[in-house]
Structures are given as C-alpha cells and as structure tokens.
C-alpha cells in the first residue's frame, strides 16, 4: 500500500480537485455571472463555516445520517427477506420481479408526494421515502445473487446433511453475499437520494432542509456548500464503508485479487 505506485493516484486526484477549484475561482473572478448566483469557493467555504459555528451544520448531518441508518436498516431487512423468497421460489420470483424492477426505476423523489399525503409533515414520512427507495435494489440484488449460486454448492450441502431450513443461513446467503453486498451498496445510494429529497420538503433539520433553507434565503453559497457536504458524505460512506466491506468479501470469496 505504501509503494510509490499506490501513492501516485492520490497525487493525481488531489491535483484534479485543486484544478476544479482553481477553474471555479477563475470563472468567478471573470465576473460573467453575478456573485449572488455564482459564489466563489471562498464564499461557499465561509458560509459553511458560519453554518458550522451557528450550530446548523453538524446537527443536520447527524440527523440525515441517523435517519439513513435507521431507515436503511429496516429497508435492508425487508429487502433481504423478500430477495430470499424471490430467490428460492420461482413463483414469487416471476410475480415480484417486474414489480420491484418497476419500483426501482421510479425516481426516489417521486415517493415524496405520496409520503406527504400518507404521513403529513412527520418524521415517519422521511423513513417511508428511504425504505421505499432502497428496498427494491436490495431485494433484486439478493434474488439475482441467489439464483446465480452454482447448484453444486446446494448439492454438496445437501449430501453433507444440511436440512432445507438450515440452507438459507448455512449456504444460500453466504454464497450470494458478494451480490447481496453490491445490492446493499446500491440500496444505500438510493436511500440517500430519497432521504435528501424528503428532507427538502418536510423537515426542520437535515441536509435537505439546509438546501431548501438556502434556496428560501436566496443564498447560493449555502445551496452549493450543502450540495458539496452531501456529496462528500455520500462518497465517504460509499467508498470507505460499503466499498471496503464489499472488497473484503470479494477477496475472501476469491472473486477479486489482493493488490
């Protein structure tokens, strides 16, 4: 990991981002667009700092993450259960597959109006949007993973005395785990989209709330700043939580090589 080659991409990437900020600052300095519509990186940074010191930023990041942690856990459990059913019963699979594929194509923001109708401006509505957004991806990935298990594993397990009721825990879920992990990662991303969409309208705290507050105050610095924070946390969790777990699993299963 500490070799020259491993360090280099990090250098390139840092340089790439510096370049983006430099171009951004140059465009701003050229003065083509009025600064209340197109703030500079410095203004955005300053606004984020203010939000931080006024105790707006951290509670909102925390609120969105807590909602995600709870909503996504529920979604993952439901998605795994439904995926297991679909993966083991051909009837369930043919019935539910098109339904869940359809639900997955629905933009996550499209869940917000119905959640407003059902739950009003309550916290449950946000959970509803997160769960509806991420469950289909988990269910589809789980069932696909199970359907692609080599039949030889099931045969071997059967001769070694594994009963049908022990199959899911001892063979089916472990054998499908790499695919399930990919589905969880995707489900998390969809849930994250849903959470921020729902918070735009129905919350008094959260990243979505801060975005909408920025719009109401005509504060482009705040809007862009919160967008950057949202990207940052999305990326961190994707790469360093889900990405790392997924890679570990794929290496253990022999699907990917260690560096």
């Amino acid at each position, binding site marked *: 990991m500490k070799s020259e080659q491993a360090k280099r991409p990090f250098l390139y990437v840092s340089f790439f981002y510096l370049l983006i900020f430099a171009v951004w600052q140059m465009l701003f300095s050229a003065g083509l667009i009025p600064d209340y519509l197109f703030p500079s990186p410095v203004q955005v940074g300053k606004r984020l700092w203010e939000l931080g010191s006024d105790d707006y930023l951290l509670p909102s990041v925390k609120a969105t993450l807590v909602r995600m942690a709870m909503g996504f856990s529920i979604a993952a459990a439901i998605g795994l259960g439904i995926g297991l059913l679909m993966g083991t019963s051909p009837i369930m699979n043919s019935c539910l597959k098109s339904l869940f594929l359809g639900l997955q194509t629905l933009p996550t923001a499209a869940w917000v109006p119905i959640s407003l109708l059902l739950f009003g401006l309550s916290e449950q509505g946000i959970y509803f949007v997160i769960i509806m957004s991420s469950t289909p991806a988990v269910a589809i990935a789980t069932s696909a993973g199970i359907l692609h298990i080599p039949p030889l594993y099931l*045969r*071997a*397990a*059967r*001769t*070694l*005395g594994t009963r049908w009721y022990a199959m899911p825990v001892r063979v089916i879920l472990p054998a499908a785990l790499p695919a399930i992990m990919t589905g969880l990662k995707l489900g998390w991303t969809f849930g994250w989209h849903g959470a921020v969409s729902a918070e735009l309208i129905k919350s008094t705290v959260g990243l979505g709330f801060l975005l909408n507050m920025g719009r109401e105050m005509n504060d482009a610095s705040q809007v862009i700043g919160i967008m950057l924070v949202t990207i940052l946390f999305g990326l961190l969790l994707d790469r360093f939580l889900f990405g790392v777990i997924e890679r570990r699993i794929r290496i253990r*299963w022999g699907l990917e090589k260690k560096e």
Partner: protein
Amino acid sequence: MNASVSKSTGRSAAPRAVKLRLANVSKTFQNGTQTVEALAPLELEVKEGEYVVFFGPSGCGKSTLLNLIAGFEAPSAGEITLEGRPITRPGRDRLMMFQEHALFPWLSVIKNVMYGLKNEPQFRFRPRKQREAARSWLKMVHLEEFESALIHELSGGMKQRVALARALAPDPKVLLIDEPFPALDALVRGKLYGDLQDILTRTGKTIISVTHDSREAACLGDRVVVFTPRPGRIKKEIHVDLARPRDINDPKVAEYAGRIMAELEGQPDEKRAG
C-alpha cells in the same frame, strides 16, 4: 462410528459383508416424447471395504448410476439398498466427491472439513471436537498447515484433497467419487492416487468411483466394472489382484489397464495377462 484416523480395518479380512446391493436397477429418461434408456437393468453387489470402479466411455450411464446411489435421482425400476435399507434420498452415509471440488469459498479450509460434522449427533454443538476431528483428516491428506487458508488460495490438487477430507470427515458408509481428478496434471494425480490408497488402507472405507481412464481404474480398483454405452450395461467385472499401494506407472497396473480397455473394445482375449 467414529471419525478417528487411526481406525483400521484389515483389507484382506475374510468374507466381507455386502454393503451396497443394486437389484434389477434401471433408469430411463423422458426426452420430450422419446424415452431414452440410460441404464439397462443391472445387478451389482459392493462389499464392505471394497473399492469398486465404474469404468466406461461417456454416455454409458456410469455417472447416472453414481447419482442413483447418492440418492440425487431415483431408479426407474429396481432397488438400491445400503446395509439392507433402501436408498430414497441423499444422505451423509453416502458422501460424494464431485468433479469440481464444490468447496465453500466463504469458509476456511478447516471450516469446510468441519461443515459435515456439524450435523453429526456426536459432534453437534461441540466445535472443539469438530475442529480436532477436522484437523486429523487434514493431516491425513497432508494439508494440516493450510487449515486457515481460504479455498481460492489453494492449488487444484490441494482443493481436491480438502474435498476428500470433507467427504471423509462425517465417516460415510460409502464414499462416492465422480471423476474428481481429470482436471489435474499427471504429477498431482499420481500423488492423489497415493493418498487415496493410503486412506483406503487406513480406514477400510467402501469406495465407488467413476472414471473413463483405464489406468486410474486399474490403479485404484479392487474390482473394475466395465460398462458399455447406450443403454448402459455391465459388460464385465475385472478383479485387480495387485498389492497396495499401487503406482500408476507400475507395468502391472498398465497390464491390467490394457485388459480393461480390451474388454471395453470387445477383444477380451487379446493382451490378456497371466
């Protein structure tokens, strides 16, 4: 009843009991409107501690027969009994080693060997005992140093040896081997034949394996059952009276291989050795 490695049943011990009996067993497959006869009615007995090889070209129904004994499929007619009890479904008393290793990649080497033990009454919920037994089986296939390795870290030959240890650990009454060696190079195979015979002499296990390699048949089998294809039929049974361990490159083994091959090709008297 125990999985201890030191267990030894003399292979030459006089009249051995019949372990497995196939009475008038046949198998037909329905292919659309066509009925295909895979196995013509056949009679066969396998004795306690005997190593029987089913030998024949592909399509002779030898693998089908192995699947029937394993209980993956039911015979169309006739009955298969193990120690007098009819076989109806797969079970730990007849463990199968597959063509591909079928080891579980999410488990380490030793956990793979322990897998079947978890369902054994005397091992259930006793992980220490399971581990000890698994370790002794790994030692028997010379892989004791690799117990915590992952499956994909092993070579092809090592994987098959782990598969062998996993199949032997729950102490099956009959071990079924479905051509698990053709994917390996000659050197590794030679070593595996040695290991397998070593285990055979030490445990007195009843083994049935399937092959289309006449040398392998002559090297491993106490008795080689030669099958002819379409429909599968027993043509001849040849007893291989050679002391163990046999070397695959031994000229006597080659001589027997020649006889086995000749049987298959329908020239029973050519090349017959005295």
